[in-house]
């Protein structure tokens, strides 16, 4: 078995212990919920977006709900990387991150390779623990659900 230190890197534990951007945003912020039926994790993503279409800017993002160290730290790092960027940039970031997690069926687009994942690279070790991949991508899928449909519920299954 790969060592637990591959999974629980210090930066991940840091985000788990002190999650960034936790909380709620009042309407008209977009709110989406994500569930992992396997372990019962539930995450809520709130987005405050100004502007229209792909050039709209994510002014603020907050995370609610509860989950394991992997889903919580992934969500926390996600908020840090996304805040202030455009929706198009954040979609690209999500593609890049999901590819890092080995999620199949993602069509890379020009420029994706150049995206710097920063702290998120620390989640690479999750790949060695396949059951935890769902935890790592939960907040990302919930984010995509929010921007694609303007809210609602998504599930890892």
């Amino acid at each position, binding site marked *: *078995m790969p060592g637990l230190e591959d999974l629980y890197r210090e930066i991940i534990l840091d985000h788990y*212990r002190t999650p960034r951007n936790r909380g709620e945003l009042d309407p008209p912020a977009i709110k989406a919920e994500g569930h992992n039926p396997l*372990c*019962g*994790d539930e995450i809520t993503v709130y987005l405050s977006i100004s502007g229209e279409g792909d050039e709209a800017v994510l002014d603020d993002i907050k995370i609610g709900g509860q*989950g*394991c*160290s992997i889903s919580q730290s992934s969500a926390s790092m996600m908020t840090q990387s996304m805040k202030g960027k455009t929706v198009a940039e954040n979609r690209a970031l999500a593609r890049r991150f999901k590819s890092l997690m080995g999620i199949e069926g993602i069509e890379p687009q020009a420029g994706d390779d150049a995206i710097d994942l920063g702290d998120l690279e620390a989640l690479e070790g999750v790949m060695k623990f396949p059951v935890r991949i769902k935890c790592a991508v939960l907040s990302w899928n919930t984010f995509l659900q929010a921007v694609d449909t303007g809210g609602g519920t998504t599930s890892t299954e």
Partner: protein
Amino acid sequence: MTFDQTAVRKDFPILWREIDDKPLVYLDSGNTSQKPQRVIDAMSHFQEHTYAPINRSSYRLAGEATDAYEKGRVAVARLINAPSVDEVVFTKNATEAMNLIAQAWGRANLGEGDVVVLTEMEHHANIVPWLMLVQERKIQIRWVPLTADGQLDLTNLDNLLDGAKVFSFTAMSNVLGTITPIAMLCERAKAAGALSIVDACQFVPHNVTDVQSWGADLVAFSSHKMCGPSGIGMLWGRMEILDAMPPFLGGGNMIDTVTFDSFTTAPVPMKFEAGTPPIIEAVGLAAAVEYLEEIGMANIRQHEMELSRYTLDTLKGRFGDDITIYGPDDVQLRGGVFSFAFRDLHPHDVSQVLDERNVCVRAGHHCAKPLMKTLGVGATTRASIYLYNDTADIDALADGLENASDIFGL
């Protein structure tokens, strides 16, 4: 010690397995149990020597196969003290047995506004089939609440049962370990004119079961939790009730005759066994029942009570307020499943760290999401024991938890 623990451990080949040169510590029997060599051999032997269709063909081999399948039924009837072997119906699992009840009995007997009483500690298998009838037929569900230590709060039971058509409850919670007062609950249901249904999935594998002394109407349980193979479950019911019920699934094996525009059903139990049943599994199940009987259900219960005491004392002794174990502390009132919250660690992380030491536990909602809501948690970690576990397994669990706090610096 009530039986030879070392010998029993040796009966289960998977427990000899090492992963990363470390022994397996299997503490997930509440989920599914491991299989003794005897069950594995019985199934192989049957396939090598006797396998054939049952109930359909007239050659001798088919007759032998039919007898072997029926031996499974005889074994189960004996194990639970059923008054008649024909009252044991084979299904795919306990979940299918519960659906059979809700669909077959429910369709014939429940309509708009009819009340089904459940408890807040039920498994989804005893919730969702009824919720389906809420959607389809607008039946109503009433819930028996819990006490602070995870027992049924029966203060208001008579009111809840007033006018109810069904009282369906677990004999032992798969999350809390709580053993419910089964015979008393059946009696109260009867007094209220309600059908009593017992989810005995967690109970039958670990205790002496006597469906007659319970006075229950219908009882469901699964082979895979009692040393038998997966793929076969059981419904026991009083003949009078099974007889009056319409069939569940339709097809071969369950009919008496079929014409272009109608059919009549075979007698119970075949009426409820549509299609080719789990033949090999019934043979394995018979071997599992014989194995359990040889050790003795009372001895298994005794062993598990002792090990439960050890588990509760070890975990509470080593971790004090840092661990919350749900359910009663009195081992007379509970079986060997221990759901707990440990420090601020998420169950998924706990089980991950334990897995590094080959300690297998379940993390999650345990198919009891409403109960998780009552407990005010999203998930728990659950360790569950069986006859093959010993104090070394519990020590490994406790050591693994210690390691988990080190890793997370808590």
